[in-house]
């Protein structure tokens, strides 16, 4: 090992400051090529007042997070929103996944553009469930248009989405996020910080492999001081429609393992359901599309009951 090796390892191991106020100023930032950008984004936000006013009109703000992709963050965000709406709540869904927005398709608003009004962007209302949604997908012209953006540009778009959207009064705002722990996450957490979000729901799939990545997300929440409302294990087993044999398609036990390891409550496990995919793809309400006794519906209902008790109890 030479002294150079030491340098390299330091860079790999050290992290960007978790406190946004220190971005660009901390010791680790010296020599980082992104320092300028971080410093630029670190001035007190002149629009914070507007942002806070808009967000104060929303009673409960919940983040849906997962370090891993494809575990069902969007799917779960949509199901929770639809159940809350069916319980008579006014609900909004904000999709901050800039590069792979899937909320518009799931909500059945894929071809509706966001309209600009005097008071800001008017979110698109899902016809199947009366949920207000805003997503980069609705701001793009075509479905296959790629958003190839670097971090700072994504940050500024997310800021606009929070600042300029006319949500009105809402009981719940569910924020769907992209996989990982990077620009989008830091941005949205910073924007919401002043108005105290209720916390985060962390989604995992049952494999041990996923839990490794998801535990990073738990650490992210702990570092940034976001309360963790609980874990949800998605894709948990598949009941063969032919013989009713339950197979653990993606092995099992990941959610419970994480829950015990980090002392985070496990809100529930949601089994695989082919009809759910169909419901999401056609943008319909899963409560209408799936049979009412479907285990998936039952499990998500239980999760929402727990969630509501937690959030509204305070």
């Amino acid at each position, binding site marked *: 090992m030479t002294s150079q090796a030491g340098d390299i390892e330091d860079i790999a191991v050290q992290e*960007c400051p*978790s406190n946004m106020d220190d971005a660009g100023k901390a010791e680790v930032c010296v020599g980082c090529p992104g320092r300028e950008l971080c410093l630029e984004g670190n001035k007190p936000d002149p629009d914070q007042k507007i942002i806070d006013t808009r967000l104060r009109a929303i009673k409960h703000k919940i983040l849906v997070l997962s370090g891993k992709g494809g575990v069902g963050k969007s799917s779960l965000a949509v199901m929770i929103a639809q159940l809350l709406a069916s319980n008579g709540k006014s609900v909004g869904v904000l999709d901050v996944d800039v590069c792979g927005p*899937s909320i518009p*398709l799931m909500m059945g608003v894929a071809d509706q553009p966001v309209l600009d009004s005097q008071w800001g962007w008017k979110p698109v209302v899902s016809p199947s469930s009366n949920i207000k949604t805003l997503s980069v997908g609705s701001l793009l012209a075509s479905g296959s248009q790629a958003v*190839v953006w*670097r971090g700072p540009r994504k940050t500024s778009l997310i800021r606009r989405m929070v600042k300029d959207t006319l949500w009105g009064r809402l009981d719940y705002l569910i924020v769907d996020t992209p996989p990982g*722990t*990077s620009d989008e996450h830091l941005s949205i957490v910073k924007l919401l910080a002043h108005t105290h979000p209720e916390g985060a729901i962390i989604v995992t799939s049952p494999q041990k492999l996923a839990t490794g990545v998801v535990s990073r997300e738990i650490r992210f929440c702990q570092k940034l001081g976001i309360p963790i409302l609980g874990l949800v294990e998605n894709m948990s087993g598949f009941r063969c429609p032919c013989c009713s044999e339950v197979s653990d398609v993606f092995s099992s036990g990941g959610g419970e393992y994480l829950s015990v390891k980090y002392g985070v409550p496990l809100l529930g496990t949601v089994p695989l359901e082919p009809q759910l995919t169909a419901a999401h793809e056609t943008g319909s309400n899963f409560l209408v599309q799936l049979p009412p006794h479907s285990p998936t519906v039952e499990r998500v209902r239980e999760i929402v009951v727990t969630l509501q008790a937690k959030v509204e109890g305070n």
Partner: protein
Amino acid sequence: MTSAAGPNATILEGVGQTVLVLSGKGGVGKSTVTVQLASALRAAGHSVGVLDIDLCGPSIPRMLGLEGRDVLTTPQGKWVPVYVDEDQRFSVISLAFFLDSKSDAVIWRGPKKNAMIKQLLTSIMWNVDYLIIDTPPGTSDEHISVMENLRSAAVLGAVVVTTPQMMAVGDVARELTFCRRTGINILGVLENMAGFVCPNCSECSNILATGGGEQLAVKAGVPFLGRVPIDPMLALCSEKGENYLVKCSSSPAAATFQALVTTLTSQSDNQMEVEK
């Protein structure tokens, strides 16, 4: 950092051909495909390297049973990849090797990720015929950085992985647009998680709908590389870091990967003839 990645550092020195594994969507099995493809290439007698540039969620080391291994550094400040096999013909670099703990979160903004990727591309001592680059989901910093830096390297192209749902297909269509715009050759679309054969009654259920990958390939005018059905054995092997292709050599998934290797190597040979 300045020592290793100087301004004149060569991109991917010691690499024959580079293959990228991409997907707009997360959790479709990019890392699984990367590992299986690398194992299949290795079994076909080539030397392979795997570069995992998923900085926020690296999973390659776990899949290959390499967790907790350290990267050695040469006196010149270059990194020596971690070897999977004894005869050193299968090597891996992942950010996970540089982290202290399994659960350490890498909370990095774009610019810092770009610097790390540049460094990973310039300061590793590869000696391989094929390098497979595993990417995070999306079309953002990591991808732009890789594409920019790969311009001067020999790139065979990108394998784009999707799952069969329309939802995933939408994200992956965006990834294809990205490839076109950055001028990267698309080797084809691979459909993962296509159907699940019940181990009890052999009924095949299309859990995540079906046929999306093939439709997308036809629509976009790119080759369709095949289907990999859901196989709990594959998930198990990935978790334990075992070699699936050896354990289940007669499975449909294994056949798809072997066919993929044939496609890749023949394309690689063609390209070399043209270059001569």
